[in-house]
């Protein structure tokens, strides 16, 4: 039984290797586009884990100290960022220009006093053009701190019922004691998912093109029906389930191989970080099974491989757009909830968690992807009788 499945799969693979589509969709396009995107959107070759920030405290006040010691230092200790200190804003700007750091926070002179007075006060961010995402995160951090500080001031002020009577000491205590604001706490981990642009683009492209890679293996069954070879299988002493299993196996092998090759190439060429191998393997396998299941379901409801191919292409584009395979949908706010229905989202989330070192979410992604594979596979299988009629 398994021998036959393997034989069928091997024959499919041999044919796939002879036609050029595998090389195009499985390798050339995803690598090329990942390279292009990474170079457009950030320094792809740079190690994505390493966000390097510099802080300049020109204020010397209580709040500046809170910002450095309570906000930035813990991120440094957690390994989320690498933090450097510089005394002079110009020197910091030079360091960023030299690309020694991705961004510099400049706490301006009189920052504490301005906050105390209820005046507009903000922490400046100087960023490198080569690290758009890292700079964006720096701005988020700076902004939410300023907002938080201002909110705390207002609270203290109203508690004292006297407007400006509070002292800087009281205020800084208040800011420190305030529950770490949700926004601030989540910015680093939430955005972490998009930090490493090289991995993001490589993985996004790889998973996007995966649908095209497995497509012809899946729709080949419709060609077999048209070309009459299906009748040969059905006439031979071979179980019908072997035929479906062989086809699913070859699609899976092709898909897994293409993802792993891309992971390898993007790591070597783009400096992408896919994370620990067992996690990557689990995610790759479940991600490929989901793609095979979904494409099979589409094929099962199509009458020709051309029709199935067109439908799968449209679906692959749609899912890729919604799921973040092509651009970071997480930045679209509420709309990003839609991405939860796409395997792309779960594949990329799983990878991001993996490369972030917190393995906790990987099983969830793997489970969701496997669930999608099973559901779509069952839908496809419900049409097996029709698919296997010559």
């Amino acid at each position, binding site marked *: 039984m398994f021998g036959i499945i393997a034989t069928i799969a091997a*024959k499919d693979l041999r044919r796939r290797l002879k036609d050029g589509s595998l090389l195009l969709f499985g390798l050339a396009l995803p690598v090329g586009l990942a390279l292009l995107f990474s170079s457009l959107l950030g320094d792809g070759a740079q190690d994505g884990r390493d966000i390097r920030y510099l802080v300049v405290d020109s204020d010397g006040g209580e709040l500046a100290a809170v910002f450095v010691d309570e906000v930035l230092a813990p991120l440094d200790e957690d390994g989320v960022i690498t933090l450097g200190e510089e005394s002079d804003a110009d020197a910091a700007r030079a360091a960023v220009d030299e690309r020694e750091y991705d961004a510099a926070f400049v706490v301006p002179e009189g920052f504490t006093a301005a906050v105390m007075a209820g005046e507009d006060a903000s922490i400046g961010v100087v960023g490198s053009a080569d690290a758009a995402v890292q700079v964006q995160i720096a701005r988020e951090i700076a902004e939410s701190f300023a907002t938080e500080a201002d909110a705390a001031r207002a609270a203290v002020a109203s508690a004292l019922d006297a407007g400006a009577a509070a002292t800087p000491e009281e205020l800084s205590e208040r800011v420190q004691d305030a529950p770490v604001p949700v926004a601030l706490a989540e910015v680093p981990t939430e955005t972490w998912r998009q930090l490493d642009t090289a991995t993001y683009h490589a993985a996004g492209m790889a998973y996007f093109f995966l649908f095209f890679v497995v497509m012809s293996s899946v729709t080949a069954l419709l060609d077999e029906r048209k070309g009459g070879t299906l009748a*040969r299988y059905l006439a031979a002493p071979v179980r019908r389930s072997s035929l479906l299993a062989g086809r699913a196996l070859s699609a899976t092998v092709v898909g897994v191989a293409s993802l792993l090759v891309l992971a390898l190439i993007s790591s070597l060429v783009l400096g992408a970080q896919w994370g620990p191998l067992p996690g990557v393997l689990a995610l790759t396998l479940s991600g490929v099974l989901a793609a095979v299941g979904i494409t099979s379901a589409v094929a099962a409801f199509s009458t020709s491989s051309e029709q199935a191919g067109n439908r799968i292409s449209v679906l692959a584009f749609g899912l890729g757009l919604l799921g973040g395979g092509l651009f970071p949908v997480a930045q679209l706010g509420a709309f990003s909830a839609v991405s939860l229905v796409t395997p792309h989202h779960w594949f990329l989330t799983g990878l991001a968690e993996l490369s972030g070192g917190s393995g906790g979410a990987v099983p969830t992604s793997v489970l969701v992807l496997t669930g999608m594979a099973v559901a779509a596979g069952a839908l496809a299988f419900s049409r097996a009788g029709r698919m296997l009629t010559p």
Partner: protein
Amino acid sequence: MEDVFVVEGVKKSYGDSTVVDGVGFRIRKGEIYGLLGPNGAGKTTTISIVMGILQADSGKVEISGMPHGPREMRTKALLGFVPQQNALYEDLTARENLRFFARLYGLSGSVARERIEEVLTAVGLADRADDLVSSYSGGMARRTAIAAGLLNRPQGLVLDEPTAGVDPQSRNAILEHVRALADSGVAVLYSTHYMEEAERICDRVGILDDGRIRAEGTRRELVDTLGERDRVVLELDGAAADAARALEELPGVHTAVATENGVELDCDRGAELAPRIVRALADRGLELRSLTIHEPDLEAVFLHITGKALRG
């Protein structure tokens, strides 16, 4: 246990249309049974049921005494199949195709290699076996398809219009080869809409029309049912339908069917009728280009039984 194929009362419908309507026949070891019928008669559907590719709505099929159907692996292993379409992978070589199909029959390693060599030699393709099938002529692809049907040394071989679209030389080779296989003891089910082929190699013929076997027997038996009848073929310049209607009125004419370039008549004693045919046409101002009287043959039988020309 001489009968390799036993088919009884097989039916298959699609929606309202009954495509195979109670077909039955038996084929002995060493016998070639021809399924003769026009396009759409139900040949391929019947064959698909006999091969266990399609499930019949009712009726039964036995192969070498064992019940047979889509789930019967034991009996499927005894049959060889040459489908109407070549059903080969064009992007693989003949040898790669055969190696794959051999695996479907559980043949691998040196047994498979020998068997592949054997069938390639048998169909005369040994020297081109490593070329892609896409580079083959129609005849060569057909011979490869036949080779694939022989890999498992079947007790029963089923060929669905194996000479369609094949050059005359390949066609001869195929017919001789099938005959030789039967002589070696294989039971053969052979579908065709070429009367000459059925006459030449089939031991018995079943005439299939609208999903039913309308007559069955050896060529001799079938032709004898016609008695003194002849088949007269007329070539005309147009107006075939008018001519057919007119000629059917003549005494002694049983059926007159308009064909592509004339009329075919099923009639008593064609020689006596010929002058009256010529006059009847002339009376209506129709130009007769040629008139041929055929001694009774399967085509005449077909015309007589179904009221249709085989290649209408």
